[in-house]
């Protein structure tokens, strides 16, 4: 692990030459030999920074490097640079004194800027780490996922069947290579225990296509996949530790997977991740497969493969896309039964980074936008505070125009620099907290750390803040001063009264309102979704998955005969029903909201209507008791029954959505469907059940058909158990034991309460809502502080210090209050107006990713406006009740007083 390069660079630049090399060597040696092992990577980096800063502070701080030269220039007082430096020195001296006198103000301003810069740096780090930084493969920008897109079919956006894969490989010449992979669960036997493993079957060229090779052993060769699936495997680093305790002799040893003896030929490196695999279920095992003609899955409709391609050097993504478009049209002509006209069929290439990041892209970009707004709010508020301070010192006659300008510039410089320094730990903390909290919801987030580039970004952002806080207020102050007409004893048209100043003070309010409305809209839509009935009752349901072993040659498997699979699930259900507190037990092939299974289908006797494209449905195999466990009601006809077995005709029940779309004016009972393409099985509809939201709470139910497991049973099924105990997971051990009594070679995995399955579908939305709410709250506090200071300045100017002229005290207080409220509204009205318009625009962006958000929800806009008028009024009241400090000093300072 490399030490922070920025720290090394600083040392090389600033440390005296005579100690530099020895110090660098010592630090390198201690870092790599001891610091990382003793402290862990993050603390070791901090330790390194501490050592480097320690060396510099003993030998040569940057200021000491600059000081002799700067002092000389200042002393000579010649030339523009010398004048500027002299002015800078004066500004710093003035500001040091004034900020020392008013530490509360300084602390609050530094904190504001640190929060602004820090949230921006956090967002930058996350966006860079997840969206920008390249994937850990060779030339990752040339990697694409290639597949057919047939809306409504399968659970993924794109997929390929073996014949389609061969078509793409043959005809898309802009692709240098194309690998096909198939993810599946498998069961390994380890120390006599069945362990579920996440496996990937792949054509032998996967690793060479990605440009990676095993850390130990060899890559697949073409001969490894001579059968349908080869009997060799490459395992992940973690699997190597788990199954072989990290022994180098693991190579050549065998592992029993799904009844087959598989020889380990390679171990991948610790950091290798299969493209697109989730952090929660990383791939542990790769086995070679063949997708040649005649292999078991060689059907055009079996779109189960993921195809990963590498674009040839000299070709571009658009070349590949154009070529694949041509392939799609050719296939449509040659196989109209699989790709009917108007079915929306297309073949696409999606950059791998896009595939890996998925929906998190919108979340992160919106978070970055929101963090940018918070930074703007912080800068604007601090700049306004500085202008007010400068103006006050000018007006009081305490300082001249030039000195006041220098004071403001110096204060801005010092505050921005201190804010930037404090922002670093805040940004580090923000990054660590976010990556810990959301690693399961955002791909690649677990590997994101606050690194040197983030420090550079923070430095760059701080420069902009410096300009905003040191230069802008001076310009503003001097322009305002020029237009000022000094009239003693009258209310002078000072900045706080002009429209521009009000608009400036209102700007942060507007930005904060945008954030709050965005958070409010997201929260409201979450709340609405929480009330949406998914079509089943998730509370009290435990789900657990199990998978029967399927050897490479399925005919040799114990569960090859459907009758034996049915018998297994029958016995397992019996055992589970006998568990105390289990009210009902069922089994289903694809759990709603976790797995999808899109199929095409036809209606026997119905005219084919090609314009409508291919009809699709979700196909689920379930036990009759599944409907009882999930409490899915019957609308017409009958439920699936125990008597629907292999001796009787093939029947299905369908949901209301299928009836509404395909049998709007006919009785669906007795109709027959052809399931799964033109050569699929024919099933008769015997009942209509209630709709279930199958992909997430915010998506409409899709047409669905259910068949009985006694008529069509697979190897991988999910048990659903209804229980009276909470938490539902408390019966998990008993359920695993029950399954073990039937066959201990069958593992139990993915144990989860159904409630959690439902909740997870909204994870991205919930994450963004929380982030927006957090940033919105920060922005409210910052902008409220800004309004309070602007109002305080206006009151002080119009009513005089303390309002203690000749007027009696109560009258003076009333006058101050009226003035405060008037100015508060002058700032709030344009601020809220701008904010509402901005929020409508921002909500339009949100609606692109979350269309059902209700982006003009009047309740949220009303509440937002109310909140901000409330903030303005509260800020005005606080500015009066606090009153000015003795000697006409700083109202603003009291902002920070407890």
């Amino acid at each position, binding site marked *: 692990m490399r030490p922070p390069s920025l720290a090394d660079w600083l040392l090389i630049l600033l440390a005296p030459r005579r*100690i530099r090399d*020895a110090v*660098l*060597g*010592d630090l390198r040696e201690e870092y790599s030999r001891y610091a990382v092992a003793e402290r862990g990577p993050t603390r070791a980096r901090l330790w390194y920074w501490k*050592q480097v800063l320690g060396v510099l502070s*003993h030998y040569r701080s940057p200021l000491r490097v600059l000081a002799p030269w700067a002092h000389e220039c200042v002393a000579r007082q010649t030339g523009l640079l010398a004048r500027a430096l002299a002015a800078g020195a004066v500004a710093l001296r003035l500001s040091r004194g004034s900020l020392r006198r008013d530490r509360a103000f300084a602390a609050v301003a530094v904190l504001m800027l640190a929060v602004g810069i820090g949230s921006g740096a956090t967002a930058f780090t996350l966006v860079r780490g997840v969206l920008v930084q390249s994937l850990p493969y060779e030339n990752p920008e040339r990697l694409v996922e290639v597949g057919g897109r047939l809306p409504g079919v399968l659970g993924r956006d794109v997929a390929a069947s073996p014949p389609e894969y061969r078509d793409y490989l043959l005809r898309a010449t802009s692709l240098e290579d194309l690998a096909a992979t198939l993810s599946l669960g498998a069961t390994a036997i380890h120390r006599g225990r069945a362990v579920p493993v996440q496996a990937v079957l792949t054509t032998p060229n996967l690793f060479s296509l990605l440009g990676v090779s095993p850390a130990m052993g060899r890559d697949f060769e073409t001969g490894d996949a001579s059968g349908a699936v080869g009997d060799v495997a490459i395992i992940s680093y973690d699997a190597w530790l788990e199954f072989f305790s990290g022994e180098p002799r693991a190579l050549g040893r065998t592992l029993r997977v799904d009844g087959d003896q598989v020889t380990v030929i390679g171990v991948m490196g610790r950091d290798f991740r299969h493209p697109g695999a989730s952090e929660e279920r990383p791939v542990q095992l790769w086995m070679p497969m063949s997708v040649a003609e005649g292999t078991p899955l060689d059907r055009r409709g079996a779109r189960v493969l993921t195809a990963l391609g590498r674009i040839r050097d000299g070709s571009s993504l658009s070349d590949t896309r154009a070529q694949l478009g041509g392939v799609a049209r050719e296939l449509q002509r040659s196989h109209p039964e699989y790709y009917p006209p108007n079915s929306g069929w297309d073949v696409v290439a999606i950059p791998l980074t896009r595939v890996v990041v998925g929906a998190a892209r919108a979340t992160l970009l919106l978070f970055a936008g929101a963090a940018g707004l918070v930074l703007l709010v912080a800068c604007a508020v601090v700049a306004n505070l500085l202008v007010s301070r400068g103006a006050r010192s000018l007006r009081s006659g305490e300082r001249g125009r030039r000195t006041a300008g220098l004071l403001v510039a110096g204060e801005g410089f010092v505050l921005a620099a201190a804010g930037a320094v404090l922002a670093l730990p805040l940004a580090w903390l923000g990054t660590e907290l976010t990556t810990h909290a959301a690693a399961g919801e955002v791909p690649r987030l677990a590997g994101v750390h606050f690194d040197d580039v983030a420090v550079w970004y923070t430095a760059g952002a701080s420069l902009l803040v410096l300009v905003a806080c040191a230069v802008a207020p001076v310009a503003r102050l001097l322009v305002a001063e020029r237009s000022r007409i000094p009239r003693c004893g009258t209310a002078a048209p000072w900045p706080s009264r002009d429209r521009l100043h009000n608009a400036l003070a209102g700007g942060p309010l507007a930005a904060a309102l945008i954030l709050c409305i965005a958070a409010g809209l997201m929260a409201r839509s979450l709340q609405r979704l929480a009330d949406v009935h998914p079509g089943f009752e998730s509370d009290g349901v435990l789900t657990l998955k199990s998978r029967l072993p399927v050897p490479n040659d399925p005919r040799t498997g114990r569960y090859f005969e459907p009758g034996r699979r049915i018998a297994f699930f029958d016995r397992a259900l019996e055992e589970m029903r006998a568990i105390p507190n289990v009210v009902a037990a069922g089994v289903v092939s694809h759990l709603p909201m976790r797995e999808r299974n899109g199929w095409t289908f036809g209606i026997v006797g119905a005219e084919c209507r090609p314009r409508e494209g291919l009809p699709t449905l979700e196909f689920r195999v379930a036990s009759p008791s599944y409907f009882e466990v999930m409490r899915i009601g019957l609308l017409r006809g009958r439920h699936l029954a125990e008597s629907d077995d292999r001796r009787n005709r093939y029947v299905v029940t369908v949901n209301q959505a299928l009836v509404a779309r395909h049998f709007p004016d006919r009785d669906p009972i007795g109709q027959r469907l052809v399931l799964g393409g033109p050569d699929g099985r024919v099933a008769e509809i015997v009942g209509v059940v209630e709709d279930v939201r199958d992909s997430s709470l915010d998506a409409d139910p899709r047409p669905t058909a259910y068949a009985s497991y006694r008529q069509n049973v697979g190897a991988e099924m999910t048990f659903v158990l209804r229980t009276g105990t909470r938490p539902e997971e408390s019966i998990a051990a008993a359920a695993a034991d029950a399954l073990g009594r039937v066959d201990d070679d069958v593992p139990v995995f993915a144990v989860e309460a159904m409630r959690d399955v439902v909740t997870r579908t909204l994870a991205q939305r919930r994450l963004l809502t929380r982030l927006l709410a957090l940033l919105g709250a920060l922005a409210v506090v910052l902008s409220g502080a800004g309004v309070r200071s602007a109002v305080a300045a206006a009151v002080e100017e119009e009513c005089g210090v303390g309002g203690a002229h000749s007027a009696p005290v109560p009258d003076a207080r009333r006058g101050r209050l009226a003035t405060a409220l008037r100015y508060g509204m002058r700032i709030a009205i344009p601020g809220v107006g701008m904010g509402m318009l901005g929020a409508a625009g921002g909500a339009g962006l949100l609606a692109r990713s979350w269309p059902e958000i209700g982006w003009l929800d009047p309740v949220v806009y009303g509440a937002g406006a109310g909140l901000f008028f409330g903030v303005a009024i509260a800020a005005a009241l606080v500015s009066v009740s606090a009153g000015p400090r003795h000697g006409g000093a700083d109202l603003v300072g009291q902002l920070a007083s407890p």
Partner: protein
Amino acid sequence: MPKREYLGEFEQLVVLALLRLGANAYGMTVRRELEQTAKRPVTLGAVYATLDRLEEKGLVSSWHTDPDPSRGGHPRRYFKVEPAGEQALATSREMMQRMWDGVALGDVGEAAS
């Protein structure tokens, strides 16, 4: 007669670390020795600044090795205590001993020692 050198508390610790480490005394080992044996967290900058000062006074001497690839191609700077350094250490110890003679601490001192 040359002026008698006294060492400050941290200087004494650094010279003692050099003597304990013998031929293996360079920046990193000195820093770790102070941290592990004297239980005093210290930065490499403080160690080098002290060693440089002692070298200027002629109490220690140093020399560089060839660049070492395991240290990113950087050399080691080894340090050795000169006779004058040993003398200064002894003088400092005697001075402290004289001051300690006849001083008895209560429980605090006992607990701390």
